[in-house]
């Protein structure tokens, strides 16, 4: 095979048996890779009712056919399993260098099953895999673990690992690779911890084989030249100020979630925006493999009490730990981000859970005695302390470790958890960006922007602006964005480059550029229709898993704060999110019933009928 390696590695942690398997070319074509392979194996091999922490759950780590090829941003892998936070699937995606190295080590995907009797790590050295003891690493943070493993194996190897949060089954523990890149969401790190697997170390050789290397090279040059011309004219915000630059847009559109989603603008926004980060703490930009954007931020904080060095914060972190907690202290936010990276936590759920706790205290539902410390809006020191306690499950951190839904429910007010399918939202307020509400409600992983990000249409004007306050017509464009997202996630690309440079310049965002790259990499000769169908297939296959796990329309929901309570202030004042109207249109566009179940006709069309 070309583009794909053509091999899968299976690791049974219970028996310590490791075996290679051939990747079925038809499965590869139908599901592309990455997210597609993930859902293919989940549907084939686990009961959707499985306890996420049981040995019966599996973890799929999958690259795509464009990972490691040199296609811009072709640096990514996807981690899929059944989530302990949501009970649905995970789609946790990361870049950096690990995914490319994993593919060069000989495998498109690794399927992990069972549970080890004692802590282990997996080492793959150029096609030879072995399980080794990780007893000496248990309890270590992600940075110390990475350093030790590089010494023990090969300094040129790449590491993905969990920290104490994953070991202690924090429901939103991440898997960290290359020290500070995160497959962050939905608790993939906790599932890895439940299997007693501390880390995966990969060392590769050679390069990914391409079906048409000359054509690929010429097309790549053309795409990169066009990109360079465009950014020479108008520098890309992502490069200049990182993702945190987005605060300027969300604040001024009145969609910057503030005070646990009670408000849409934040008085202290100038303090936490990307420009402030660049001025105060930026050491240098950092790019993932083959990425011309370099949105990553290497930062250093010297302010007393918050000293540290690392990567971040991203926009989502700045919203969740900043405006959402009314914290305008960027040093505190950055420090809490470092702690998340070191202990292995998702910064979105961490910040949003602290914000929820702050509101519970503010309303008198939770006492500061229970917490063991003061917790007022805007308290950066509390954020830092509680983040550390959560990662270690110490004191009140043990309750925060369950996420905002379980916390708010415990104190009698689940409506104060701003979640869908029990997963916390990223930082775009649906009352002022209607399609984002639909994207959160219908994402297969619960509240997420990365499985469909119509903020591009509503807030960024890419490829063109669409009225952010209108709900009619949003079902169709949200489906289009989700479909191309599934293709991007399956191909091994990053959304940041692909939407601007590899999609058609209309609201249909057809994957025209991705099609060319995929065909020259794999030689499979997808038609545009076949590729788009693959995107739909992945999303519908995910839906089948969710349906069997008990999810349907009732779960494609938003908190009543966003659907019943009009935004009280700012440029989105007076709006609620019209989720029900959008859902009807969305299901129809998808070929799902009004209850959110794929129809037999659709399953037939996509080859998913059973």
């Amino acid at each position, binding site marked *: 095979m070309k583009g794909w390696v053509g091999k899968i590695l299976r690791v049974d942690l219970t028996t310590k048996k490791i075996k290679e398997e051939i990747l079925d070319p038809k499965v590869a074509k139908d599901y592309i890779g990455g997210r597609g392979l993930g859902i293919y194996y989940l549907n084939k091999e686990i009961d959707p009712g499985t306890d996420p922490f049981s040995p019966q759950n599996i973890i799929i780590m999958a690259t795509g056919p464009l990972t490691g090829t040199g296609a811009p941003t072709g640096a990514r892998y996807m981690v899929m399993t059944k989530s302990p936070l949501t009970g649905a699937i995970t789609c946790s995606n990361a870049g950096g260098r690990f995914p490319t190295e994993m593919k060069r080590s000989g495998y498109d995907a690794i399927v992990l099953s069972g549970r080890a009797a004692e802590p282990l790590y997996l080492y793959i050295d150029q096609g030879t895999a072995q399980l080794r003891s990780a007893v000496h690493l248990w309890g270590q943070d992600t940075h110390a673990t990475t350093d030790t493993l590089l010494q023990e194996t090969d300094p040129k190897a790449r590491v993905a690992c969990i920290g104490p949060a994953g070991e202690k089954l924090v429901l939103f523990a991440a898997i960290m690779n290359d020290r500070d890149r995160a497959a962050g969401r939905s608790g993939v790190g906790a599932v890895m911890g439940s299997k007693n697997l501390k880390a995966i170390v990969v060392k590769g050789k050679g390069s990914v084989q391409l079906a048409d290397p000359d054509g690929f090279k010429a097309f790549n040059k053309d795409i990169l030249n066009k990109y360079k011309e465009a950014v020479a004219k108008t520098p890309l915000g992502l490069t200049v*100020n990182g993702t945190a630059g987005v605060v300027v847009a969300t604040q*001024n559109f009145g969609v910057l979630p503030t005070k646990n989603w009670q408000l849409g603008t934040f008085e202290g926004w100038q303090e936490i925006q990307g420009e402030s980060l660049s001025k105060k703490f930026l050491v240098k930009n950092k790019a993932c493999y083959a990425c011309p954007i370099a949105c990553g931020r290497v930062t250093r904080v010297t302010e007393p009490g918050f000293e540290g060095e690392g990567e971040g914060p991203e926009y989502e972190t700045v919203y969740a730990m900043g405006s959402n907690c009314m914290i305008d202290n960027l040093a505190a936010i950055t420090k809490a981000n470092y702690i998340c990276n070191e202990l292995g936590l998702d910064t979105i759920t961490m910040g949003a859970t602290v914000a929820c706790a702050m509101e519970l205290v503010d309303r008198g539902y939770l006492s500061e005695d229970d917490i063991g410390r003061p917790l007022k809006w805007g308290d950066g020191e509390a954020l830092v302390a509680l983040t550390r306690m959560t990662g270690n499950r110490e004191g009140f951190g043990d309750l925060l470790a369950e996420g905002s839904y379980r916390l708010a429910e415990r104190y009698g007010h689940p409506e104060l958890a701003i979640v869908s399918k029990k997963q916390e939202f990223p930082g775009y307020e649906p009352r002022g960006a209607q399609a984002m509400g639909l994207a959160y409600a219908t994402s297969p992983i619960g509240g997420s922007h990365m499985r469909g990000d119509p903020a591009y249409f509503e807030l960024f004007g890419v490829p063109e602006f669409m009225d952010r306050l209108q709900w009619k017509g949003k079902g169709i464009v949200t489906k289009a964005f989700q479909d191309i997202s599934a293709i991007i996630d399956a191909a091994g690309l990053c959304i940041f480059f692909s939407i601007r440079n590899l999609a058609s310049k209309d609201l249909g965002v057809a994957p025209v550029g991705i099609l060319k790259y995929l065909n020259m990499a794999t030689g499979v000769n997808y038609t545009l229709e076949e590729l788009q169908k693959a995107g739909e297939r992945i999303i519908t296959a995910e839906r089948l898993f969710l349906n069997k796990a008990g999810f349907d329309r009732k779960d494609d929901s938003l908190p009543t704060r966003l659907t019943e309570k009009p935004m009280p202030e700012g440029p989105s004042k007076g709006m609620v999110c019209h989720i029900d109207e959008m859902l009807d249109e969305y299901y129809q566009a998808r070929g799902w019933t009004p209850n959110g179940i794929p129809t037999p006709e659709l399953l037939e069309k996509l080859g998913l009928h059973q």
Partner: protein
Amino acid sequence: MDVQVKLYGLFKKYAPEERQEFQLKLPPDSNVKKLLKILNIPFEQERTLLVNGQLAGLERRLESEDIIVIFSPMSGG
């Protein structure tokens, strides 16, 4: 009439004395095009322009006390 203007990022350089936020006197019946001319912002410069929090084009008429925000197009998450 007086409007409030807020220029961020690359657009800061067009602000009088490089102040990000300022009041500006405009002739009556001004539109966005007129405002850009007064501030010497080239029409072809890629931008996101909001009037009172909503996107606005060149022909949008401005009224007293309008808040106009201009920043570079962005994306991310």
